[in-house]
Structure formats: structure tokens, C-alpha cells
């Protein structure tokens, strides 16, 4: 029977088509969106569903049309008709999930993405495909193929692809599939995942209910309408306060490595950089402690919402160069000057104090500051050696309090 279901599902053309679409999508995906994280590879890979779903809907129409041509045989069959529809749905989902997985894994391999999150997006896209297949089958059973096929093809594409272009309401885009996610402190909002899952599941259920015949037909259609209505209400209520971003602060643990008196912690996709980070941070800490500076001993990547710049927060990019690691650590550990911007302006002495500190910390630790760290216009550290530590702490305190009155 499995071979029969695959035959009814038109796997002979659907499988090559979906795989070809998946490979094409993987090759044209913007590599800058991946940021070394498999979640982003899955987000980008799962977007090919907007092409897979219409193809599957057409395959569903053909399966439905076959059932329509065999109405009497199916009608007098022992198992409920919805079992047959569900079986074809399962085959379509299997085929498309294989294509979606191929796409995400290809993107992940090309961009050396790491991490294990993102599979839920593949599963969700599979559920969306199941919905397309089920609706296609229902259309194929109800209408002639020449009408049902274009309706299914265009309908599923419009439903999936067009909400992304809507400016208002912005949340509408979150009911189709996930796009534009995620920066390293983010992950996909569970509410978005739940909304898509709810709507797709209800679509599958409603299509299955249309197979009921006889006395069950009217209650079945009513139940289908109720299921869709409830799912729409629930889904929209889950996402209607979201803007264009489906992101939420990232959950999960960072990977840490001891360094000096503290540690360095990064997201899993950046663990390759941990040894270089730990070595550089130990050197920088030694310098800070030798001069008695009140600076954090731990630096870490953090989730959105827990980010306080200058409080030991760092943010890595994939395949980061070892040359820039010391500067990344030093600028991440120093107090941030952003809070000192008041009314759009900042006392330039605060800025100069920060630059002075950063350059001093790096050069004293044996590292060369990059061109990004501008040379301060005058020297704050022109003091006798026995007063240097006190002056450094004065600079740190000035930045922390945004009070430049004690600065020369």
C-alpha cells in the first residue's frame, strides 16, 4: 500500500521537482543572513516552502482527481476516505520535508553553520505542506482538474508569499512562515511557531473533514468551518502584537571557558573561537588586575533583553579573525558610553576617555588597536607612573557616571 500511496501522491515528478527547488533555493540564499547559526540556515531553507507548497497542492489535486474518478470504489471502501487523504498527505509531507531538510542542510554546510536549533521550522514547513496537499486533494475531489489545479497552485502561493509584502497589518506575515530572523541574541518566537502550527493543523483537519459523506457531510463541513475559524482567531491573537520581527530573546545556554579569574561565554555556534577568546581575555584581565581596575572578569554573549553594553557583553560574528578578538573583548568589557548620549550629544571628554582606556588596555597587554579605535586628540594619561592607576580608575568612573567634571 505504501507504493500505492506514493503513486497516488505523484512522487515520480514531485520528488525531483521539490529537490531541484530546494537546491536552487540553497544556492541563491544570501550567505550574510546565516551568521554561522543553523537556526538561520533553517529559517532561510524553510522559506522554499512557498514554492514547495504550490507544487504539492497540484499533486494533491491530481490525487484528489484520481479519487474522484474512483468515487464508487472509494465510497464503498471499508476504511474512512479521510485515511486515504491522510496517507497521501503523509507522503507529500515526507517528500517535502526531505527537500526542506536538504535545503537547510545545504545552506548550513555552505555557510559552516553550527547549532541544533531550527528543526522545528522544518517540521512547521512540513505541516504547511500537509495543509497544501490536503486542500489540493479536497479541491481535486470537488472540481475538475483543469479548474482545481490552477486554483490550488496560485492559491497556495498567494496565501504563503503575499503576506510578506503587506505593510499593514505587519503580523499577517507571521501566519505563513518565518522570515527575517534571527540575530545572535534572538530566536524565533514560540508564539509565531504556535500560530503557524495551529493554522496549518486546522487546515489539514478541515480538508480531511470534507471527505465525510452521507449524514456526516453537513456536520463535517460545519466542524471544518469551526476549526478554521477558531484556528484563525487563536493564531492571530498569538501574533497580533508583533511587529515585522518574529524574534524573541534567545533561550539556551552559552558555552563557557575559564579564563584568568573569570570566564568567556559564547553561543554554541561560536565555540570554535573560545580558545582564542580565553587566551586574549586572560591577558587583558592580567593587565587590568595589575593596575587594580574595576572591570568585569567575565565576558559573555547574551540574549536580547539582557544586553548591557560595556558590562562584559560581547557579540561575535562567525569565523571571527583572531586579530580582532582582543579589541572585541576590551571594548566589550569597558563601560559603555552610549548612556552618556543625552539629547543627541555627548561630552567629547567622555568619548576621549573611553578611547584612551581602550587603546591603553590593548597596547599595555601587547595588542595593537585597530584603525577603528581612533587616537584620542590629547593624552589623558600624561601623569607620573605612581598616579597612573588612580587616573585610569578616574576615567572608568567618569564613563560610568557620565560625569566628565573630574577629567582634565
Amino acid at each position, binding site marked *: *500500500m505504501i*507504493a*500505492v500511496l506514493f*503513486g*497516488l501522491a*505523484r512522487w515520480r515528478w514531485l520528488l525531483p521537482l521539490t529537490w531541484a527547488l530546494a537546491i536552487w533555493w540553497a544556492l541563491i540564499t544570501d550567505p550574510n543572513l546565516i551568521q554561522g547559526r543553523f537556526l538561520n540556515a533553517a529559517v532561510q531553507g524553510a522559506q522554499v516552502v512557498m514554492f514547495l507548497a504550490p507544487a504539492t497542492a497540484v499533486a494533491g489535486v491530481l490525487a484528489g482527481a*484520481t479519487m474522484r*474518478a*474512483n*468515487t*464508487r*470504489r*472509494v*465510497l*464503498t*471502501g*471499508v*476504511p474512512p476516505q479521510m485515511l*486515504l487523504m491522510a496517507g497521501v498527505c503523509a507522503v507529500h509531507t515526507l517528500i517535502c520535508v526531505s527537500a526542506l531538510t536538504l535545503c537547510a542542510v545545504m545552506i548550513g554546510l555552505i555557510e559552516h553553520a553550527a547549532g541544533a536549533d531550527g528543526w522545528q521550522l522544518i517540521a512547521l514547513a512540513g505541516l504547511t505542506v500537509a495543509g497544501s496537499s490536503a486542500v489540493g486533494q479536497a479541491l481535486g475531489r470537488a472540481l475538475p482538474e483543469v479548474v482545481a489545479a490552477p486554483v490550488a497552485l496560485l492559491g497556495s502561493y498567494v496565501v504563503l508569499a503575499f503576506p510578506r509584502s503587506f505593510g499593514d497589518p505587519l503580523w499577517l506575515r507571521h501566519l505563513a512562515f518565518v522570515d527575517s530572523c534571527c540575530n545572535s541574541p534572538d530566536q524565533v518566537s514560540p508564539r509565531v511557531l504556535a500560530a503557524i502550527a495551529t493554522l496549518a493543523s486546522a487546515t489539514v483537519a478541515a480538508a480531511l473533514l470534507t471527505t465525510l459523506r*452521507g449524514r456526516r457531510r453537513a456536520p463535517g463541513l460545519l466542524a471544518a468551518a469551526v476549526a478554521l475559524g477558531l484556528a484563525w482567531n487563536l493564531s492571530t491573537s498569538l501574533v497580533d502584537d508583533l511587529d515585522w520581527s518574529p524574534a524573541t530573546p534567545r533561550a539556551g545556554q552559552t558555552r563557557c571557558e575559564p579564563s584568568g579569574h573569570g570566564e568567556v561565554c559564547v553561543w554554541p555556534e561560536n565555540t570554535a573561537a573560545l580558545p582564542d577568546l580565553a587566551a586574549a581575555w586572560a591577558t587583558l584581565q592580567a593587565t587590568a588586575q595589575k593596575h587594580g581596575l574595576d572591570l568585569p572578569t567575565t565576558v559573555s554573549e547574551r540574549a536580547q533583553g539582557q544586553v548591557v553594553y560595556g558590562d562584559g557583553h560581547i557579540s561575535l560574528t562567525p569565523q571571527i579573525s583572531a586579530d580582532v578578538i582582543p579589541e572585541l573583548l576590551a571594548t566589550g568589557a569597558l563601560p559603555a558610553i552610549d548612556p552618556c548620549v543625552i539629547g543627541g550629544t555627548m561630552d567629547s571628554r567622555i568619548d576621549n576617555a573611553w578611547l584612551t582606556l581602550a587603546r591603553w588596555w590593548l597596547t599595555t597587554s601587547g595588542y595593537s588597536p585597530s584603525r577603528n579605535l581612533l587616537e584620542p586628540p590629547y593624552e589623558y594619561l600624561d601623569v607620573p607612573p605612581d598616579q597612573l592607576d588612580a587616573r585610569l580608575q578616574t576615567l572608568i568612573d567618569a564613563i560610568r557616571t557620565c560625569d566628565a567634571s573630574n577629567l582634565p
Partner: protein
Amino acid sequence: MLESFDWVVPSGRTALLGPNGAGKSTLLAIGASGLRPRGGHVAIDSVTWPSRRGVRSYRAHVGWMPQQNEFAPHLTVRENVELAAWLKAVPVQQRRSAVGEALEQANLSGRSDDVARRLSGGQQRRLCFAQAIVHRPTVLLLDEPTVGLDPAQREGLRAVLAGVEGADIVISTHQVDDIDEAFDTVVVLHQGRIRFQGSTEQFLGLVEPGDRRGERAYLALAPDVNA
């Protein structure tokens, strides 16, 4: 169309005769549970239809070959019969052998891997027959099985039908000349009522021996057919 209709399917092979519109296809469709009667019920042994509980069990007992071919043209012959086996709830462990036997019985073993749409008209009819018998029904309802076939194809299908054992068979036809000793019983249905039921001998005995004897016997029972 069929009112106050009470009929017990005779054992063996029954030819169901009648003009177009007599109710033959309706009767067989109701018997196959493809049409729901407005009143009354159909029973096979203790299993009745319509009923809340019995329909699945009932359907598993009945084989039906509608007048129009129904199969999936892009599937192979074997896959089509497998689909019918699944629809008739043949247990998984018996499905392979049941499909093989049905194909053998329909004389399609040699074409089992061919795509169904490539079969000839006679072979497509035999495919539908294989689908109807794959679950080894106790009652087999064949609606105009030879319609649209050329003489050679008709003969091939008749030979296949002759090999069926273990099921009571009702074959509807309006080709009265098909009636011969291969049938145990002849039933003439006319305007929704049974006009005649008896053995083939009794049916043919209604008229004197000679050419087109079946046709003459039939016209003797339903003289208004051509009106």
C-alpha cells in the same frame, strides 16, 4: 425506481436482465452500498446495510464492478488492485497473496507491472474485475461487465468470470444472447419489479428452440420493451 422490492439473491450465478432504465444498476449499487436506499435494508447473512455498525463488515463481503471503469490510470495494474485490497480492508499479511490471486484470476499476471492506462479495453475491464474480487467477496455484483468490448474481449472476460468460485454472482446485462448454461438463474427486472426468476432452462423454455432464443424469451416476458 425500486419500490416494495424484496429479493433474495439466488446462490450460484445469476443473470439480471432488463431494458435500460429497469433499475439493474440501481439495484446493484444499493447492493454494493454505493447508493443508500430510502427505506429497507440489504443483508448478507447477519450483516445488514444500512446500519450503524454493519456497513464496514457488509462492504467487506461485497464485490462490485460498476458499469464504468474505475481505476487510477497512472498506477500499475498491481498497484490498482492493491489499492482496491486496501479499500476493502484485506489484512496486510494477506494482501500480497490476495492481489496475486486476483491478478491470476483476471488473467492479468503478465501485465501486473504495466501502467493501467496502457491496457486494452478488455484488459481494463479485467482489471476492474480483479479489483472487485481481490477481497474474496461472498457476493459479487457485476454491472454490464461485457459492455463496450469486442467479441474476442467479451469471450476473454466470460472465460475469466467462469473461473470464479466461492461467491454468489449477479451479472447485469441487456445482452440477452449472453444467457447460456453458464448461469444458474435468470432474473428479469422490468420497471423496478421482478418479472421473472427461474433457472436458465426455465427461462429459455419459455419459447421454442431456435435462433436468438434468449432474446425471444426475454421479449415474451417484457413485450413492451420496444414500445
